[in-house]
C-alpha cells in the first residue's frame, strides 16, 4: 500500500480498497483542505464516499464531479484519483484553481458505483451496471445513468432487466443514485455538476431525453467549446461537443438531465478517450495523459462557474 499520496502510483489501475485507502491518505495529508464524507451505502453495503475540498465558509456554492458511475470505465475512476491529488498540489500554486477554491467548494465522488467496480475486479471486468437484484428476473443490475428522475422510462432506456441500459423499476431505485440525489437536494447550493464516463471523446450537456433545446443551450455550448479546445491543446485528442441527444443518441433518465432540472445550470457529461482500439480496456499508460487533458477542460468549466454566479 502506498505510504503517501506522493508514492501512490497514478499510472496503474487500482482496486476499490486501494482507492479508498488513497482517500484516507489525502485527508490525512491535507486536513485543512480535504475531508471525506460518506453519503450513503451501496446496495451490497459498501460505503459511498465523496471528497470535499474546501477552504472555509459555510455551504458555499459548489462544484460536483463524479467518476465511475459505469463501473467498467476504469480510466474514469483512475482519473478521479489523479484529479484529487492535482487539487491538493495546485491549490496555492495555480492562480485559477486557487481563486476557484477561495470561493467555491469542490465535491469529488471517485467510485460512484462501488458494487459494480468491485465486481469488475472480482468476477466480470465488463460489468457496467449496479448489482441490485430485480424481483422476477435472473438478470442483475440497473444502469445508474438511466435511473434518474428526468424523462425516466422514456425512449432512450430499456425496461428489460437484462439490458445494459435497464432503467430500473422506478426513478432513484438505485441507492447509489438516491444517495447523490439526497446530497444535492440537502446541499442546495451546487452550481456545476460534471459526470465523467468513458469512452468516445465527447463533452455533452442536456438534454438527452428530448430534442428540445435546453434554455441555456447557447451558453453551455460556448463553455463546452472552450473546454474542448483546452483539452485538445495538450495532446491533440479530438473531442466533439453538444447536447446528449444530438451528439450520441436519445438517453433518458440521465444524471445531468436531472441535475439540470434541479437548476444546476452547468451540467456536463464527459466521455473520455480511447483514441485507438482499446475501448474500455485503455492501457494504464494512458491514465495520466487522459487525466491531464481532462483536467484542463474541468478548469475551464469551474472557472466559468466561478465567474458567472447565478
Amino acid at each position, binding site marked *: 500500500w502506498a505510504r503517501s499520496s506522493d508514492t501512490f*502510483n497514478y499510472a496503474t489501475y487500482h482496486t476499490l480498497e486501494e482507492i479508498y485507502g488513497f482517500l484516507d491518505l489525502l485527508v490525512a495529508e491535507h486536513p485543512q483542505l480535504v475531508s471525506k464524507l460518506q453519503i450513503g451505502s451501496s446496495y451490497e453495503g459498501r460505503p459511498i464516499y465523496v471528497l470535499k475540498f474546501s477552504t472555509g465558509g459555510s455551504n458555499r456554492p459548489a462544484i460536483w464531479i463524479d467518476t465511475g458511475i459505469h463501473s467498467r470505465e476504469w480510466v474514469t475512476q483512475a482519473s478521479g484519483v489523479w484529479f484529487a491529488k492535482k487539487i491538493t498540489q495546485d491549490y496555492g500554486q495555480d492562480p485559477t484553481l486557487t481563486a476557484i477554491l477561495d470561493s467555491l467548494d469542490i465535491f469529488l465522488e471517485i467510485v460512484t458505483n462501488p458494487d459494480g467496480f468491485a465486481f469488475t475486479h472480482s468476477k466480470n471486468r465488463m460489468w457496467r451496471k449496479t448489482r441490485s437484484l430485480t424481483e422476477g428476473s435472473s438478470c442483475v443490475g440497473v444502469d445508474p445513468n438511466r435511473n434518474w428522475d428526468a424523462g425516466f422510462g422514456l425512449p432512450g432506456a430499456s425496461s428489460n432487466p437484462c439490458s*445494459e441500459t435497464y432503467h430500473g423499476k422506478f426513478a432513484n431505485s438505485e441507492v447509489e443514485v438516491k444517495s447523490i440525489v439526497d446530497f444535492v437536494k440537502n446541499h442546495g447550493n451546487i452550481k456545476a455538476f460534471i459526470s465523467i464516463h468513458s469512452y468516445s471523446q465527447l463533452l455533452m450537456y442536456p438534454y438527452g431525453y428530448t430534442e428540445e433545446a435546453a434554455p441555456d443551450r447557447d451558453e453551455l455550448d460556448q463553455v463546452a467549446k472552450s473546454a474542448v479546445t483546452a483539452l485538445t491543446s495538450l495532446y491533440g485528442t479530438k473531442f466533439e461537443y453538444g447536447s446528449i441527444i444530438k451528439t*450520441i*443518441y436519445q438517453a433518458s433518465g440521465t444524471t445531468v438531465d436531472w441535475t439540470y432540472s434541479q437548476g444546476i445550470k452547468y451540467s456536463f457529461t464527459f466521455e473520455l478517450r480511447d483514441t485507438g*482500439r*482499446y*475501448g474500455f480496456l485503455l*492501457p*494504464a499508460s494512458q491514465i495520466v495523459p487522459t487525466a491531464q487533458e481532462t483536467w484542463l477542460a474541468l478548469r475551464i468549466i469551474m472557472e466559468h462557474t466561478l465567474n458567472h454566479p447565478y
Partner: protein
Amino acid sequence: KENFAGHQVLRISAADEAQVQKVKELEDLEHLQLDFWRGPTHPGAPIDVRVPFPSLQAVKIFLEAHGIGYTTMIEDVQALLDEEQEQMFALRA
C-alpha cells in the same frame, strides 16, 4: 471470474441510416449476447461491439450479407485483460 477468451470487439461502420437500423436489429437478438461498447447512433459514427466467440461467425456473416463494413478492433478481449492484470500486479509487487 468471467473469461473472455475468443471474444472479439468489432468496429462497425454503418454507411447510412438503413445500415444503422440493421445493426440495431442485431442489438435485439439477446441470444447473441452482444455487448455494445458504443451503440449505433448515426451513419459514420463508429459502432463498437464485443462479440462472444460462439456468436462471431453469425455476426460477421450478417454484416457481410448486408454489406456493412467492419474491422476487428480487439482480436481477443481476454488477452488484453491478462495484460491489464499483469500490469497491475507487477506494479503492486
